[in-house]
Protein backbone atom coordinates (compact mmCIF):
# COMPACT_ATOMS: atom_id res chain seq x y z
CA UNK A 1 0.00 0.00 0.00
CA UNK A 2 1.25 3.48 -0.85
CA UNK A 3 1.76 5.72 2.15
CA UNK A 4 -0.40 8.85 1.65
CA UNK A 5 2.58 11.12 2.26
CA UNK A 6 4.25 9.92 -0.96
CA UNK A 7 1.44 11.36 -3.07
CA UNK A 8 0.39 14.42 -1.09
CA UNK A 9 2.46 16.81 0.98
CA UNK A 10 2.01 16.84 4.73
CA UNK A 11 0.03 20.09 4.58
CA UNK A 12 -2.21 18.82 1.73
CA UNK A 13 -2.98 15.67 3.69
CA UNK A 14 -3.56 17.74 6.82
CA UNK A 15 -5.98 20.01 4.90
CA UNK A 16 -7.94 17.07 3.46
CA UNK A 17 -8.18 15.41 6.87
CA UNK A 18 -9.36 18.66 8.43
CA UNK A 19 -12.00 19.04 5.67
CA UNK A 20 -13.26 15.52 6.38
CA UNK A 21 -13.13 16.15 10.11
CA UNK A 22 -15.28 19.28 9.85
CA UNK A 23 -17.67 17.48 7.48
CA UNK A 24 -18.06 14.54 9.84
CA UNK A 25 -18.51 16.83 12.86
CA UNK A 26 -21.39 18.49 11.00
CA UNK A 27 -22.78 15.04 10.23
CA UNK A 28 -22.60 14.11 13.93
CA UNK A 29 -24.52 17.28 14.77
CA UNK A 30 -27.27 16.17 12.34
CA UNK A 31 -27.28 12.63 13.70
CA UNK A 32 -27.54 14.01 17.24
CA UNK A 33 -30.78 15.76 16.25
CA UNK A 34 -32.23 12.58 14.76
CA UNK A 35 -31.25 10.24 17.61
CA UNK A 36 -31.71 12.72 20.43
CA UNK A 37 -28.54 11.23 21.93
CA UNK A 38 -25.00 12.49 21.87
CA UNK A 39 -22.85 10.95 19.12
CA UNK A 40 -19.18 10.35 19.86
CA UNK A 41 -16.68 10.46 16.99
CA UNK A 42 -13.19 9.10 16.48
CA UNK A 43 -10.39 11.03 14.85
CA UNK A 44 -10.34 10.31 11.07
CA UNK A 45 -7.97 7.60 9.87
CA UNK A 46 -6.62 8.06 6.36
CA UNK A 47 -4.96 5.65 3.94
CA UNK A 48 -4.30 5.36 0.25
CA UNK A 49 -5.44 1.94 -0.89
CA UNK A 50 -7.00 0.05 -3.76
CA UNK A 51 -10.61 -1.05 -3.42
CA UNK A 52 -9.71 -4.58 -2.35
CA UNK A 53 -7.61 -3.26 0.52
CA UNK A 54 -10.29 -0.72 1.50
CA UNK A 55 -12.89 -3.52 1.51
CA UNK A 56 -10.62 -5.64 3.71
CA UNK A 57 -10.14 -2.74 6.13
CA UNK A 58 -13.92 -2.38 6.46
CA UNK A 59 -14.53 -6.10 6.95
CA UNK A 60 -11.64 -6.46 9.40
CA UNK A 61 -13.12 -3.92 11.73
CA UNK A 62 -16.80 -4.76 11.36
CA UNK A 63 -17.09 -8.31 10.19
CA UNK A 64 -19.03 -9.51 7.18
CA UNK A 65 -22.64 -8.73 8.03
CA UNK A 66 -22.90 -5.08 7.23
CA UNK A 67 -25.53 -2.69 6.03
CA UNK A 68 -24.57 0.61 4.47
CA UNK A 69 -26.12 3.69 2.94
CA UNK A 70 -23.98 4.72 0.01
CA UNK A 71 -23.94 7.93 -1.97
CA UNK A 72 -21.67 8.73 -4.85
CA UNK A 73 -20.42 12.27 -5.31
CA UNK A 74 -19.08 13.84 -8.46
CA UNK A 75 -17.75 17.25 -9.31
CA UNK A 76 -14.61 18.79 -7.86
CA UNK A 77 -14.04 15.54 -6.00
CA UNK A 78 -15.22 12.13 -7.13
CA UNK A 79 -15.90 9.27 -4.84
CA UNK A 80 -18.32 7.58 -2.52
CA UNK A 81 -19.42 8.23 1.03
CA UNK A 82 -20.83 5.43 3.13
CA UNK A 83 -22.58 5.20 6.43
CA UNK A 84 -21.88 1.65 7.60
CA UNK A 85 -23.39 -0.36 10.45
CA UNK A 86 -23.23 -3.93 11.64
CA UNK A 87 -26.38 -5.35 9.99
CA UNK A 88 -28.07 -5.98 13.34
CA UNK A 89 -27.74 -2.27 14.12
CA UNK A 90 -29.71 -1.06 11.09
CA UNK A 91 -33.12 -1.71 12.58
CA UNK A 92 -32.03 -0.23 15.90
CA UNK A 93 -31.12 3.01 14.11
CA UNK A 94 -34.50 3.13 12.36
CA UNK A 95 -36.27 2.61 15.71
CA UNK A 96 -34.18 5.31 17.34
CA UNK A 97 -34.88 7.80 14.56
CA UNK A 98 -38.61 7.09 14.20
CA UNK A 99 -39.07 6.79 17.98
CA UNK A 100 -42.61 6.41 19.19
CA UNK A 101 -44.15 7.31 15.84
CA UNK A 102 -44.15 3.80 14.40
CA UNK A 103 -44.67 0.29 15.80
CA UNK A 104 -41.79 -2.22 15.77
CA UNK A 105 -43.52 -4.04 12.88
CA UNK A 106 -43.78 -0.85 10.87
CA UNK A 107 -40.16 0.01 11.65
CA UNK A 108 -39.06 -3.39 10.31
CA UNK A 109 -41.16 -2.95 7.16
CA UNK A 110 -39.70 0.42 6.39
CA UNK A 111 -36.12 -0.33 7.42
CA UNK A 112 -34.44 0.25 4.05
CA UNK A 113 -36.38 3.37 3.25
CA UNK A 114 -35.67 4.84 6.68
CA UNK A 115 -32.00 3.89 6.48
CA UNK A 116 -31.70 5.56 3.08
CA UNK A 117 -33.32 8.75 4.35
CA UNK A 118 -31.24 8.86 7.55
CA UNK A 119 -28.07 8.16 5.59
CA UNK A 120 -29.02 10.84 3.09
CA UNK A 121 -29.30 13.50 5.80
CA UNK A 122 -26.06 12.50 7.50
CA UNK A 123 -23.94 12.05 4.37
CA UNK A 124 -25.30 15.22 2.78
CA UNK A 125 -24.50 17.24 5.84
CA UNK A 126 -20.93 15.92 5.68
CA UNK A 127 -20.45 16.37 1.93
CA UNK A 128 -22.19 19.72 1.60
CA UNK A 129 -20.06 21.30 4.31
CA UNK A 130 -16.95 19.97 2.55
CA UNK A 131 -18.18 21.34 -0.78
CA UNK A 132 -18.85 24.73 0.80
CA UNK A 133 -15.36 24.90 2.23
CA UNK A 134 -13.89 23.97 -1.16
CA UNK A 135 -16.25 26.46 -2.82
CA UNK A 136 -17.12 23.88 -5.44
CA UNK A 137 -20.34 22.06 -5.90
CA UNK A 138 -20.53 18.33 -5.44
CA UNK A 139 -23.36 16.42 -7.06
CA UNK A 140 -24.70 13.72 -4.79
CA UNK A 141 -26.39 10.61 -6.14
CA UNK A 142 -29.50 9.17 -4.52
CA UNK A 143 -28.75 7.09 -1.44
CA UNK A 144 -28.53 3.36 -1.95
CA UNK A 145 -28.87 0.73 0.76
CA UNK A 146 -26.41 -2.13 0.32
CA UNK A 147 -25.82 -5.24 2.42
CA UNK A 148 -22.97 -7.69 2.68
CA UNK A 149 -19.26 -7.65 3.38
CA UNK A 150 -16.75 -4.90 2.55
CA UNK A 151 -16.39 -5.85 -1.13
CA UNK A 152 -20.15 -5.68 -1.73
CA UNK A 153 -20.39 -2.28 -0.10
CA UNK A 154 -17.72 -0.82 -2.37
CA UNK A 155 -18.80 -2.44 -5.64
CA UNK A 156 -20.03 0.13 -8.16
CA UNK A 157 -22.19 -0.32 -11.23
CA UNK A 158 -19.64 1.55 -13.30
CA UNK A 159 -16.85 -0.80 -12.26
CA UNK A 160 -14.69 2.06 -11.05
CA UNK A 161 -13.05 -0.07 -8.41
CA UNK A 162 -9.79 -0.53 -10.30
CA UNK A 163 -7.85 2.53 -9.18
CA UNK A 164 -6.41 3.82 -5.95
CA UNK A 165 -8.58 5.69 -3.51
CA UNK A 166 -7.94 8.02 -0.64
CA UNK A 167 -9.75 6.21 2.14
CA UNK A 168 -11.05 8.07 5.20
CA UNK A 169 -12.58 6.25 8.07
CA UNK A 170 -14.31 7.58 11.18
CA UNK A 171 -16.25 5.56 13.73
CA UNK A 172 -19.12 6.88 15.76
CA UNK A 173 -21.19 5.62 18.66
CA UNK A 174 -24.32 6.99 20.29
CA UNK A 175 -23.58 7.53 23.96
CA UNK A 176 -26.78 6.05 25.36
CA UNK A 177 -27.91 3.58 22.71
CA UNK A 178 -26.44 0.48 21.24
CA UNK A 179 -25.93 2.17 17.90
CA UNK A 180 -22.48 2.32 16.45
CA UNK A 181 -21.23 2.64 12.94
CA UNK A 182 -18.73 4.13 10.61
CA UNK A 183 -18.54 6.87 8.05
CA UNK A 184 -16.19 5.89 5.25
CA UNK A 185 -15.25 8.11 2.38
CA UNK A 186 -13.41 7.02 -0.74
CA UNK A 187 -12.01 9.68 -3.03
CA UNK A 188 -10.88 8.52 -6.45
CA UNK A 189 -7.28 9.28 -7.28
CA UNK A 190 -7.16 9.02 -11.09
CA UNK A 191 -6.47 12.72 -11.17
CA UNK A 192 -4.22 13.39 -8.25
CA UNK A 193 -3.04 16.65 -9.81
CA UNK A 194 -6.62 17.98 -9.87
CA UNK A 195 -7.05 17.03 -6.23
CA UNK A 196 -3.76 18.69 -5.32
CA UNK A 197 -4.84 21.89 -7.10
CA UNK A 198 -8.14 21.93 -5.27
CA UNK A 199 -6.48 21.41 -1.91
CA UNK A 200 -3.82 24.01 -2.67
CA UNK A 201 -6.58 26.51 -3.53
CA UNK A 202 -8.34 25.69 -0.28
CA UNK A 203 -5.16 26.10 1.77
CA UNK A 204 -4.35 29.41 0.08
CA UNK A 205 -7.86 30.67 0.65
CA UNK A 206 -8.08 29.81 4.34
CA UNK A 207 -4.63 31.24 4.91
CA UNK A 208 -5.19 34.19 2.57
CA UNK A 209 -6.33 37.68 3.38
CA UNK A 210 -9.94 37.52 2.27
CA UNK A 211 -10.94 34.59 4.48
CA UNK A 212 -11.95 36.69 7.45
CA UNK A 213 -14.39 38.74 5.40
CA UNK A 214 -16.26 36.15 3.42
CA UNK A 215 -15.20 32.76 4.80
Amino acid at each position, binding site marked *: MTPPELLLTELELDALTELVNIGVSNAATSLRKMLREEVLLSVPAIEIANHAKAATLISQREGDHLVAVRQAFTGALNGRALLIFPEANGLELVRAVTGEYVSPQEAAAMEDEALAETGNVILNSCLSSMANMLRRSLTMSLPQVVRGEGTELLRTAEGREAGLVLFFYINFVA*RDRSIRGYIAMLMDLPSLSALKLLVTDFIERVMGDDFGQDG
Partner: protein
Amino acid sequence: MAIKVLIVDDSKLARIVAAKALGTLQPEWDRVEAGNADEALARLAGGGIDVALLDYNMPGRDGLVLATEIRALYPDMPIAIITANAQDEVIERARAANAAFVMKPVTTESLRAFVSGAALRLRSAAR
Protein backbone atom coordinates in the same frame (compact mmCIF):
# COMPACT_ATOMS: atom_id res chain seq x y z
CA MET B 1 3.68 42.51 28.38
CA ALA B 2 1.89 41.18 25.32
CA ILE B 3 -0.96 38.74 25.81
CA LYS B 4 0.02 35.21 24.79
CA VAL B 5 -2.45 32.78 23.23
CA LEU B 6 -1.98 29.01 23.10
CA ILE B 7 -3.52 27.37 20.00
CA VAL B 8 -4.02 23.60 20.33
CA ASP B 9 -5.03 21.54 17.29
CA ASP B 10 -3.68 18.32 15.77
CA SER B 11 -4.09 19.90 12.34
CA LYS B 12 -1.28 22.27 11.42
CA LEU B 13 -3.55 23.94 8.87
CA ALA B 14 -6.22 24.54 11.50
CA ARG B 15 -3.59 26.09 13.79
CA ILE B 16 -2.47 28.41 10.99
CA VAL B 17 -6.07 29.42 10.23
CA ALA B 18 -6.80 30.14 13.90
CA ALA B 19 -3.54 32.08 14.27
CA LYS B 20 -4.38 34.14 11.22
CA ALA B 21 -7.88 35.04 12.42
CA LEU B 22 -6.44 35.92 15.81
CA GLY B 23 -3.73 38.01 14.16
CA THR B 24 -6.39 40.03 12.33
CA LEU B 25 -8.34 40.68 15.52
CA GLN B 26 -5.43 41.26 17.90
CA PRO B 27 -2.23 41.80 15.90
CA GLU B 28 -0.20 42.57 19.01
CA TRP B 29 -1.01 39.29 20.79
CA ASP B 30 1.66 36.58 20.74
CA ARG B 31 0.74 33.08 19.61
CA VAL B 32 2.19 29.70 20.51
CA GLU B 33 1.02 26.32 19.22
CA ALA B 34 0.65 22.74 20.44
CA GLY B 35 -0.42 19.61 18.51
CA ASN B 36 -2.01 17.69 21.38
CA ALA B 37 -3.09 17.87 25.03
CA ASP B 38 0.26 16.84 26.54
CA GLU B 39 2.16 19.39 24.50
CA ALA B 40 -0.39 22.00 25.52
CA LEU B 41 0.04 21.29 29.23
CA ALA B 42 3.83 21.41 28.85
CA ARG B 43 3.52 24.81 27.15
CA LEU B 44 1.25 26.05 29.92
CA ALA B 45 3.63 24.79 32.62
CA GLY B 46 6.32 26.91 30.95
CA GLY B 47 4.23 29.91 32.01
CA GLY B 48 3.15 33.15 30.39
CA ILE B 49 0.02 31.85 28.60
CA ASP B 50 -3.06 34.06 29.00
CA VAL B 51 -5.65 32.55 26.63
CA ALA B 52 -6.24 29.04 25.20
CA LEU B 53 -7.93 27.97 21.94
CA LEU B 54 -8.58 24.21 21.93
CA ASP B 55 -9.67 21.95 19.08
CA TYR B 56 -12.25 19.39 20.23
CA ASN B 57 -11.55 16.28 18.15
CA MET B 58 -7.89 15.37 18.69
CA PRO B 59 -6.04 12.07 19.04
CA GLY B 60 -5.39 11.26 22.70
CA ARG B 61 -7.31 13.51 25.08
CA ASP B 62 -9.91 15.69 23.38
CA GLY B 63 -10.26 19.44 23.76
CA LEU B 64 -13.06 19.22 26.34
CA VAL B 65 -10.99 16.98 28.62
CA LEU B 66 -8.06 19.33 28.16
CA ALA B 67 -10.27 22.35 28.92
CA THR B 68 -11.30 20.78 32.23
CA GLU B 69 -7.66 20.08 33.11
CA ILE B 70 -6.62 23.62 32.22
CA ARG B 71 -9.56 25.08 34.13
CA ALA B 72 -8.48 23.24 37.30
CA LEU B 73 -5.01 24.76 37.01
CA TYR B 74 -6.01 28.23 35.78
CA PRO B 75 -9.46 29.15 37.10
CA ASP B 76 -9.58 32.51 35.32
CA MET B 77 -8.00 31.78 31.93
CA PRO B 78 -10.22 32.56 28.92
CA ILE B 79 -10.61 29.25 27.04
CA ALA B 80 -12.45 28.49 23.78
CA ILE B 81 -13.38 25.09 22.34
CA ILE B 82 -13.17 25.10 18.54
CA THR B 83 -15.22 22.55 16.59
CA ALA B 84 -17.84 22.00 13.89
CA ASN B 85 -19.41 19.47 16.26
CA ALA B 86 -22.25 21.60 17.60
CA GLN B 87 -24.09 18.88 19.52
CA ASP B 88 -25.92 20.13 22.62
CA GLU B 89 -23.76 17.94 24.90
CA VAL B 90 -20.53 19.32 23.46
CA ILE B 91 -21.73 22.90 23.96
CA GLU B 92 -22.90 22.03 27.49
CA ARG B 93 -19.58 20.45 28.45
CA ALA B 94 -17.75 23.49 27.11
CA ARG B 95 -20.00 25.65 29.26
CA ALA B 96 -19.42 23.42 32.30
CA ALA B 97 -15.68 23.99 31.91
CA ASN B 98 -16.42 27.70 31.62
CA ALA B 99 -15.13 27.67 28.04
CA ALA B 100 -16.54 29.50 25.02
CA PHE B 101 -17.72 27.62 21.93
CA VAL B 102 -16.34 28.68 18.54
CA MET B 103 -17.52 27.08 15.28
CA LYS B 104 -15.08 25.65 12.74
CA PRO B 105 -14.03 26.69 10.16
CA VAL B 106 -12.59 29.53 12.22
CA THR B 107 -12.93 33.02 10.80
CA THR B 108 -12.32 36.44 12.28
CA GLU B 109 -16.11 36.70 12.62
CA SER B 110 -16.56 33.42 14.50
CA LEU B 111 -13.64 34.26 16.81
CA ARG B 112 -14.48 37.93 17.39
CA ALA B 113 -16.87 37.60 20.36
CA PHE B 114 -14.57 35.29 22.28
CA VAL B 115 -11.49 37.43 21.66
CA SER B 116 -13.25 40.66 22.68
CA GLY B 117 -14.53 38.99 25.85
CA ALA B 118 -11.08 37.59 26.64
CA ALA B 119 -9.43 40.99 26.10
CA LEU B 120 -11.96 42.58 28.44
CA ARG B 121 -11.47 39.95 31.15
CA LEU B 122 -7.68 40.19 30.97
CA ARG B 123 -7.80 43.98 31.16
CA SER B 124 -10.07 44.03 34.19
CA ALA B 125 -7.99 41.30 35.92
CA ALA B 126 -4.83 43.35 35.35
CA ARG B 127 -6.35 46.38 37.01
